[in-house]
Every structure is written in structure tokens, then in C-alpha cells.
């Protein structure tokens, strides 16, 4: 019950802010942070819950962006439809990738996800309809009442998407699916021997994860009024989506959210004050530091300091 109150508050807050006099920059930055909440939460469904590390977030994100562009260019589809289509296509990509490699050891799945980035990016570079290597300029449709700007509307849309993503992650986590995924993560061999249909559950997690990443990507073209391969398939998405849950904590849905908000904000600050390369270096360093020194992330540290109750789930 507390969760749903939190959800309502979050959506109300987002809408309220969008309708207020707040500085426009806040929505630019806020959109990016919320996007990372979705990406980190999506990554964690497969990475944190099941223990399969996806290096290829950029592929699913990028394909989501391009799907939105295709729908927009071909049919002038509204944002909601773009997001749904992007989720479907990226979900399918997740399913296909999983089908090919989830029968094997975790590291091969991870390498395969790098392959997917390459193949998808090469395909988009060679597709003139979406602009090929040079990309495509996009004209935003006129903004809907009551929003002042398109960016504000995107901000609210992303807030809703973030809430949906977190709700899905939380549902999976507390359900029997989550229990099965945890068993897979702890000891896949034992899980398989004790009735857990490991392949089916992994495929499910991979598909849902991919779909959410695609949904996050769908709003990107409208946000930038532009699409091109290098930025859509940027490795920064892959590293961030991995680093944020690792830093926040991977065993609970709150971990990716904390990681995304903290690291996302740090990224915005560093990019603006220092440089975007240093920003990316900071993400990498923080990832390594946390992975080595604080394996259970910030949530784990809080539990150790007894600021949070330890629950043995």
C-alpha cells in the first residue's frame, strides 16, 4: 500500500513541477535522470535478480529509439504508440538474444550482448530511411495542453514510464518469478534440479528487460529532435545501466532507483562543470570501486550500518 502511495505522489509531483514555473533546464536534466531510472531498473531485472550481466543496454535502447523514429516518420504516430512499439521490438530483440545464448554460461550471454550492439548499429548505419550514418532531423509535433513545452511533456511521460518500470520490477521481485530468478542467481544448477524452469524464467527476464530499455529509448528522438547511430548506441548507456544498480544495490528494486538518481545527477553536474569525457571516466571508476569495495551497493551499506532492517528474503 505504501508503494502505491509513493507512486501517486511521484506522478503528482512530476505533473505539478511540469506545470509550475520551474526553470526549463530542470526538465532537460530531469528527463535524463528519469530515463536512467528506467534503464537501471530494466537492467537489474536480468542482472541483479537473475545474475546475467547485460553489456548491451545500448542496443536495446537504440533500437527503441529507431523504432519510434520509424513509426513517427511513417505514420506520424503519437508518443504513446511509439513507446509501445519500441517496447515490443526491443522485447523481441531481448527474446532472440536470450534464446541464442541463455543456455550457455553467463559470460557468453554478456559477449553476445556486445555483438548485438555492433550488429544493430551497423544495420542502422546502413539504413537510409532513418538517416544512415549522418542521422535524421525530426520536427516535434505541437505541444499538447496544458504543457508549456514539449520537454516538460516528455519529462512527465518519462516519470510515468519510470513508475511503470519500477512497479514491474517490484512485482517480479516479490512474486514466485523473483524467487525463481534468485534461485538461478544463487545456484542455477540447483535451481534447475529443484523444479525451476531456468531457461523460461531467464528468457522472460531478458524479454521484459529489453522491452523496458526500448521504451526508455523511444522518447530520445523527440527529446533531441534528432537521431543518429553513434549517440543512440553510445556505450555510456551500457556502462551506466550496469553501474547504477551495482552502486545502488542489486537485490531490491530501490537500488537501481537510488543509483540512477545519484549517479545520474553526478553525471549532469560533472558534464556541465568539467567535461563529458571525465564524466564517463567517473562512472567507470565508481563502478569498479563499488564492485570491489561495496558489493551490495548503497543499500547493502545502509543495512550494514543498521540504518535499514535486514530482511532475509
Amino acid at each position, binding site marked *: 500500500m505504501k508503494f502505491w502511495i509513493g507512486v501517486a505522489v511521484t506522478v503528482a509531483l512530476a505533473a505539478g513541477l511540469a506545470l509550475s514555473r520551474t526553470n526549463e533546464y530542470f526538465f532537460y536534466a530531469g528527463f535524463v535522470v528519469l530515463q536512467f531510472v528506467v534503464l537501471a531498473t530494466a537492467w537489474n531485472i536480468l542482472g541483479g535478480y537473475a545474475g546475467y*550481466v547485460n553489456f548491451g543496454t545500448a542496443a536495446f535502447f537504440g533500437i527503441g529509439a529507431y523504432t519510434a523514429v520509424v513509426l513517427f516518420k511513417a505514420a506520424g504516430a503519437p508518443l504513446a504508440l511509439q513507446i509501445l512499439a519500441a517496447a515490443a521490438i526491443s522485447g523481441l530483440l531481448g527474446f532472440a538474444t536470450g534464446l541464442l545464448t541463455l543456455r550457455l554460461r553467463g*559470460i557468453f550471454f*554478456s559477449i553476445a550482448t*556486445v555483438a548485438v550492439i555492433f550488429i544493430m548499429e*551497423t544495420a542502422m548505419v546502413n539504413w537510409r530511411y532513418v538517416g544512415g550514418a549522418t542521422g535524421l532531423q525530426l520536427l516535434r509535433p505541437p505541444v499538447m495542453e496544458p504543457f508549456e513545452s514539449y520537454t516538460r511533456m516528455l519529462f512527465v511521460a518519462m516519470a510515468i514510464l519510470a513508475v511503470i518500470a519500477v512497479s514491474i520490477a517490484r512485482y517480479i521481485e516479490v512474486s514466485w518469478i523473483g524467487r525463481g530468478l534468485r534461485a538461478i542467481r544463487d545456484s542455477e544448477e540447483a535451481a534447475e534440479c529443484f523444479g525451476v524452469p531456468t531457461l523460461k524464467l531467464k528468457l522472460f527476464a531478458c524479454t521484459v528487460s529489453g522491452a523496458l530499455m526500448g521504451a526508455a529509448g523511444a522518447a530520445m528522438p523527440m527529446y533531441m529532435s534528432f537521431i543518429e547511430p553513434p549517440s543512440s548506441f553510445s556505450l555510456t548507456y551500457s556502462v551506466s545501466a550496469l553501474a547504477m544498480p*551495482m552502486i545502488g544495490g542489486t537485490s531490491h528494486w530501490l537500488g537501481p532507483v537510488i543509483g540512477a538518481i545519484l549517479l545520474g545527477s553526478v553525471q549532469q553536474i560533472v558534464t556541465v562543470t568539467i567535461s563529458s569525457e571525465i564524466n564517463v571516466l567517473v562512472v567507470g571508476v565508481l563502478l*569498479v570501486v563499488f564492485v570491489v569495495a561495496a558489493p551490495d551497493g548503497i543499500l547493502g551499506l545502509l543495512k550494514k550500518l543498521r540504518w535499514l532492517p535486514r530482511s532475509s528474503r
Partner: protein
Amino acid sequence: MSFELLLEAIVFGVLLGCFYAAVSIGLSVAFGLLDVPHVAHPAIMVLGSYCTYVLGRYGWDPIVAGIALMPLFFLLGVAIYRFYYESFEKRGSEAGVRGLAFFFGLAFIIEVGLILVFGVDQRMVEAAYIGRSLALGEFRLPWRMVVAFGVALALTAALTIYLSRTFTGRAIKAVAQDEPALRLMGANPVRIKQWAFGIATGVTALAGAMLIVVGPVEPSLDRVYIGRTFAVVVLAGLGSMTGTLAAGLILGISESIVLMQFGASWAPAVAFGLLLVVLGIRPQGLFGR
């Protein structure tokens, strides 16, 4: 495609393939034998390329520079393995995900570090054998490829002999196959693995030198080489050195043909495609144990 072009593609592919084999052999040891999820291997190779570039600015021949860098990289490898072992392998259960994330983070840090120091532009070296071609019958083989081919062959042979003839070499193979037995014989598996990882990294320094001989380098090159090196190692079969050569040749020739037929943008995808196909059909590779 005409027969002549096909033949030229194959010949070039053989040179390229041998180079790929040498570049992957460090991973064959680190991942194939030692089972370390070393996705940072290509990044360390690119690091080696840039070190070679720096020495090249002082007039060093790239291959000589590569050989000179080997002891340094050996020590780097020992340090990395020790760190990995203490932080992850020792702790057992949760090691898999975090070990992988660690190496991914390391690769990323190396790539970004290189961008910060050298920028994103391509860097190259100069040598007597770069820029000229060897005329062999009807073919013109770039000398830089021939030199890389020669060095690669020598390196692969040397490592294969080391692993099968010397005492430490065989200990390395033994630790991959039966660690408890090795412990019973009084050998310390961790020190052997450390040594092996050091050798794998040292070899990678020379691989990096060859990389910058073969063509210009840029910091993001490690990404496509993840596909190439893992494709070779998996196709070879984990732990097989001779398989690495065969697999490298297969990749080299396939890539060369695709390059000729479809152009440069699709060539890197060949490695990844090959990897996915092998994983789907015959995951133990050609000579897998």
C-alpha cells in the same frame, strides 16, 4: 566475385587470420585455461598499441617496442590477477557477476583514459615495412601484414611450445584441468595462475604492437576486438592453443572475403556473427576440452 579476387582475399585472410590468432592467444590462456572473465583483454591490447605509439615517437621500431613492453605488461598482468583473485575469486559465490562487471569497468576506464590522454583521433606508427608491399607472383602483399604474420606465427609457436614442454608451462595446463591434484603435488595454484595471467598479458603487449603495425588505432578499437578475440577463443575450443591458430585463420579468411564483397562497415560484424553461430551450434568449439 572473380577467382583472382577470391584468391587475393584468401591470401590476405591468411595473413590477417594469423594476426588474429596471435592477438587472441593471451585470451586463450586467461579465459580458456584460467577461466577468468577477462573482457578487458582487448582494451589492454589497445593500451599496448598506444604505449608502442609513444615509444615510436622516440624512434623505436614498433615490434622492438612491443617486445620491450612485454616484461612491463607481465607485471601488470600479475597485479591484475592478484587483485581479481583477492577481490572476487576467493569470495566464491557472488564472484561471477561482479568479476564480469569489474573487467567491463576496467576496459571502460582504459578506453576513456586513452581518449583523455590521446584524443579520439587515429594514431599510427612508422617503420620501414609500413607502406610498402611485397610482390609475390600476381599478388601485392603489404609488408606490414607480412611482418605481423611472421611475428604472430613465432609468438604462437613459442607459447605453444612453452605450455607443452616446460615445467611451468605444463603446470599451467595442469591447473586448468585439475586444480586439486596440483595442490596435492605441493604446487600453489594461485601462484601458477598469477604467472600464467602475467604471461598472457605480456604477450598481449606484443599483440598491441602488431595491432598498430597492421593499421591505425583509436581508443574504441577494443570493442570490435572483443568480438574477434572471443570468436577465435570460442571457435578454437577453450584451452586449445593449436585451435587458436586454426580459428584465427577461419575468422581472417571469412572477414577478408566479406570485406571484399560487402565493404568495410560489415567486416567487424563477421566476428560477432561467427561467435553467435559457434555458440549456437557447437559451443565447445573445434578442439574443446
